[in-house]
């Protein structure tokens, strides 16, 4: 009986990890498409799909609230980008091959730096199956990160005013 329940738990862990890998890989593929795409419409769709795939990844590990924020943010940002795309739709966003290769090399250096930073940790790991409730997260934010939360609120408020001023000038 105990073996059966342990087996079911391992199965659940593996399923969760497979979901995370699947949606995470989708996010990577869509992001790569958004970087190399040339038309504004394709960039909008690929970036939106990448954000949605990342939201599904968060859902797979049981983080509903973060998934909601991710989907909300990427949708609002996508709508902004879509409307902005109408303004400059005649402009091509061509990437020079030489510059792209140099950027790719810089990206590899960045990857090496990240790998060096992670050398003390396990890059290949299995996710534990534990869910964090919204109430616990809220209690942690208010109890331990209250200053950061307040600063974030003030920052958002200032930015709303600043963006209004910037767009109106």
């Amino acid at each position: 009986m105990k073996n059966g329940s342990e087996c079911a738990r391992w199965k659940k862990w593996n399923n969760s990890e497979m979901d995370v890998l699947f949606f995470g890989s989708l996010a990577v593929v869509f992001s790569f498409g958004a970087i190399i795409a040339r038309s504004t419409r394709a960039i909008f769709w690929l970036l939106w799909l990448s954000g949605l795939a990342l939201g599904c990844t968060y859902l797979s590990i049981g983080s509903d609230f973060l998934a909601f924020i991710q989907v909300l943010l990427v949708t609002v940002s996508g709508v902004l980008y879509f409307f902005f795309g109408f303004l400059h739709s005649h402009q091509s966003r061509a990437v020079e091959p030489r510059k792209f290769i140099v950027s790719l090399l810089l990206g590899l250096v960045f990857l090496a730096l990240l790998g060096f930073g992670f050398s003390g940790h396990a890059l290949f790991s299995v996710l534990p199956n534990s869910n964090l409730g919204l109430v616990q997260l809220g209690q942690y934010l208010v109890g331990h990160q209250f200053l950061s939360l307040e600063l974030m609120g003030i920052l958002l408020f200032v930015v709303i005013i600043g963006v209004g001023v910037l767009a109106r000038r």
Partner: protein
Amino acid sequence: MIYLISVILSVLGFVGIASSQSFIGFIVGTQILFFGFSSLFVFIAYGGGSQEPGLAFGIFILAIGAVYQAVSYALAARIYQRSNRVAISDLKRIRN
């Protein structure tokens, strides 16, 4: 393997920023970079013992990403009004 997704997303964002000539490409690259780093915090939190700090910092990074997006689009609209295109080199034009 799961952290690699975040690392690849971050690197893709970095490549997007470095290779972009248009300001829109710069915004897209930075957004992907924000995706990568927020997911990195979340995955590290889930791989480790306590989850609250990682989720909290994931939320903070997403919020800062939203702030960045709002300012970037406002700047891009301003650049477009001035020079009828959205190139990074035109950022200097809105200085005055």
